């Protein structure tokens, strides 16, 4: 129980620091503070989708249903954090560009990504047989992940986008105020801890439900 309590205090500290310690961003003003929540949420979405693919590959190799449950939980968490990144991005967009949504390549690619993973849940809900459901959704999760680097990292850099970039690719520099960087890294660690905690709770719940179902069918 100590871990979650440390996480609670840690994230409370990050929130306070993002308003009181971190300076306003150059060119973005007070709206730039949202970077502390938006980028870590997007990072966790990519991490969770990657884990869903790893679990799915594991299922396809070994055929163990617990790997399918892990893939499902990771895909769910990835989608939750992807939605969080989309919403925080839209709030920032309202402040910086004057509109919540303007079909910038970043916004379009994240909307496509959300639809791809929404289809994963539709596929799961459409099949009753557990083995068939696990096999088909594992294949889909592997294929879906191939689109993640393309939609998150490549498309927004191919097309002209107003979205600010943390990393300047032309001179390979990373421009961030040192106080901002400290809060940003603390947030990144906090979000990763939050993901690990949510994953642990949800997988235990899924395993519990599975065992209950097994007992009922005996």
């Amino acid at each position, binding site marked *: 129980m100590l871990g979650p309590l440390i996480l*609670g205090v840690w*994230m*409370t500290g990050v929130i306070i620091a993002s*308003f*009181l310690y971190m300076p306003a961003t150059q060119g973005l003003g*007070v709206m730039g503070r949202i970077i502390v929540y938006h980028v870590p949420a997007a990072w966790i979405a990519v991490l969770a989708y990657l884990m869903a693919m790893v679990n799915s590959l594991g299922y396809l190799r070994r055929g163990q249903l617990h790997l399918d449950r892990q893939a499902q939980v990771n895909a769910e968490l990835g989608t939750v954090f992807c939605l969080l990144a989309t919403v925080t991005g839209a709030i920032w967009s309202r402040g910086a560009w004057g509109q919540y949504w303007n079909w910038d390549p970043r916004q379009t690619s994240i909307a496509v990504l959300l639809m791809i993973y929404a289809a994963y849940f539709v596929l799961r809900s459409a099949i009753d047989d557990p083995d068939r459901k696990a096999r088909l959704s594992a294949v889909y999760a592997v294929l879906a992940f191939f689109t993640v680097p393309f939609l998150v990292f490549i498309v927004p850099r191919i097309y002209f986008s107003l979205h600010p970039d943390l990393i300047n690719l032309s001179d390979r520099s990373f421009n961030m105020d040192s106080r901002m960087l400290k809060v940003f890294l603390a947030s990144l660690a906090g979000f990763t801890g939050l993901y690990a905690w949510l994953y642990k709770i949800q997988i*235990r*719940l899924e395993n*519990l439900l599975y065992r209950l179902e097994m007992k009922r069918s005996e």
Partner: protein
Amino acid sequence: MAKGLSFVLAVTLVTWIGLFLYILRVDLKVREAERREEI
């Protein structure tokens, strides 16, 4: 700090603490269910 920014900080903190306590409650419920299953 500007009044508007203080308000955003307060809303963010209340949202986070509420969400945190809710997740903590779910965690405790799952632990309780696992304990009952063992019994």
